[in-house]
């Protein structure tokens, strides 16, 4: 249903420990936050893109598709930063060089950060990241609910799409007013069905000894210390290079 999810379950790094990708992407976001943007961002963008495409084997086309919508947001949002608004003398809009620098900085940082998110999202199933939250002290009830939400999203999305197809087949979206009414009916029906599903799951899981907790085996992915070390070294090298370039550019 979601292209991102499909890659997350089937890429070259599928069997590796999710902590490794979390370190790479999270470390990338961290140094991007701490170090000068103008030199760090291009390096991060480069490293993450290479890792995603050459490392995990995600096709370039799909990586670009991932970036497309947020980049669209960026292209419409960033120019606003380059325009200044003068309120003293009526309302006057003007180009601002300082604002333009901010816009450029934001664009670079966003692109680089986006490449970190892409690396993580395209290579790691959401549920494996959620499972890591337990170690961060998130209560197990919350983690279990998150895992169940993940599963149910696909089910309910399917129902939503099919429901809309059915309404469209009966001209439910022929005018604005009818569209609104159809959508309202769809949402109300989806909620009812969601609650029904909760009740039926209760019966279905009771047959399997469900008493409230949703404990399952965790997948075994061995954490590779050599790989973690290499990722650390890579991030360190990027940091050093970024700082050096920054000094060199003055």
């Amino acid at each position, binding site marked *: 249903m979601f292209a991102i999810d499909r890659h997350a379950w089937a890429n070259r790094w599928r069997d590796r420990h999710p902590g490794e990708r979390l370190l790479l992407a999270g470390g990338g976001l961290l140094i991007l936050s701490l170090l000068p943007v103008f030199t760090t961002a291009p390096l991060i963008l480069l490293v993450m893109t290479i890792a995603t495409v050459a490392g995990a084997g995600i096709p370039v086309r799909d990586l670009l598709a991932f970036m497309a919508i947020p980049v669209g947001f960026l292209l419409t949002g960033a120019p606003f930063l380059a325009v200044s608004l003068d309120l003293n003398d009526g309302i006057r809009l003007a180009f601002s060089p300082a604002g333009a620098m901010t816009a450029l900085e934001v664009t670079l940082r966003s692109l680089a950060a986006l490449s970190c998110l892409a690396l993580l999202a395209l290579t790691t199933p959401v549920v494996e990241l959620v499972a890591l939250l337990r170690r961060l002290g998130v209560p197990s009830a919350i983690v279990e609910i998150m895992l169940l939400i993940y599963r149910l999203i696909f089910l309910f999305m399917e129902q939503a799409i099919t*429901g809309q197809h*059915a309404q*469209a087949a*009966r001209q*439910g979206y022929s005018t604005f007013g009818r569209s609104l009414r159809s959508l309202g009916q*769809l949402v109300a*029906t989806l909620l009812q069905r969601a609650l029904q599903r909760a009740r039926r799951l209760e019966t279905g899981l009771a047959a399997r000894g469900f008493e409230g907790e949703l404990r399952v085996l965790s997948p075994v992915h061995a954490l590779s210390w050599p790989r973690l070390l290499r990722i650390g070294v890579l991030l360190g090298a990027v940091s050093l290079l970024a700082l050096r370039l920054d000094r060199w550019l003055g």
Partner: protein
Amino acid sequence: MSDPILLAEGLEYAYPDAVMALQGLNLRVQPGRRLALLGANGSGKTTLLLHLNGTLRPARGQVRLDGQILGYDRAARLAWRSRVGLVLQDPEDQLFSATVAQDVSFGPLNQGLSDAEARTRVDEALASLRIAHLAGRPTHALSFGQKKRVAIAGILAMRPAVVILDEPTAGLDPHGVAHLLGALRHLQDSGTTLVFSTHDVDLAYAWADDIAILGAGRVLRQGTAVEALADSNLLGSAHLRTPTILALATALRDSGDLEWSDAQPPRTQGELVELIRQRSVHARN
């Protein structure tokens, strides 16, 4: 052969997660006939149906209605859906209103009919499916078979020329199947073209005029029911099997016990039993 009312030419379609569902599919729907789209789970039946009423737009290829290539702008889709009605498999996916009559009125009202006209359409549709007595009932309290018929009534009330049904008999018991098929036959008698998808080879053989066998996003064979089902290897490769009645009738003809012509093969349990009885009566005389 008359001009097809619907014609799919070289349809290709992939879902957003890159699963290829249709891979160059061709199909012709003859007016006034019953066409079964027979295929295993995952063969692309539902995706095809969603193309036939313009819900999905093919990446390549086109659909013609009455010979005209169809567009995908809003107006074109609206006109298309007034001619081609689609009933999905799970009635829960398409019943949104509190009562049966309200639900069935959804389509006619969306078509811009007046309340009075819509009411007439509702009564007509419910009557033609023999469920007029359900009109005032709350939809959630209906049995599965009743929901199925209400969902069909919701499409009939729009008076489409072609009615497309996704797995119409799925989940129905023998009595429910008989009841539904009776109502659909009645519909065909009034000139409506029927297209239905199914993985039930016995149903397709008993009930379709024409059959298109689907596999891996293509129509592997299309013809009259008997033509399409003749090749058991093809059926096997499509994860299907030869219909029971056809297999037995063929075995009985091969063994010399029974005679029947390909033009008029026995289609149902009743017809085959009758054939056996007649023969034994003959033999005795």
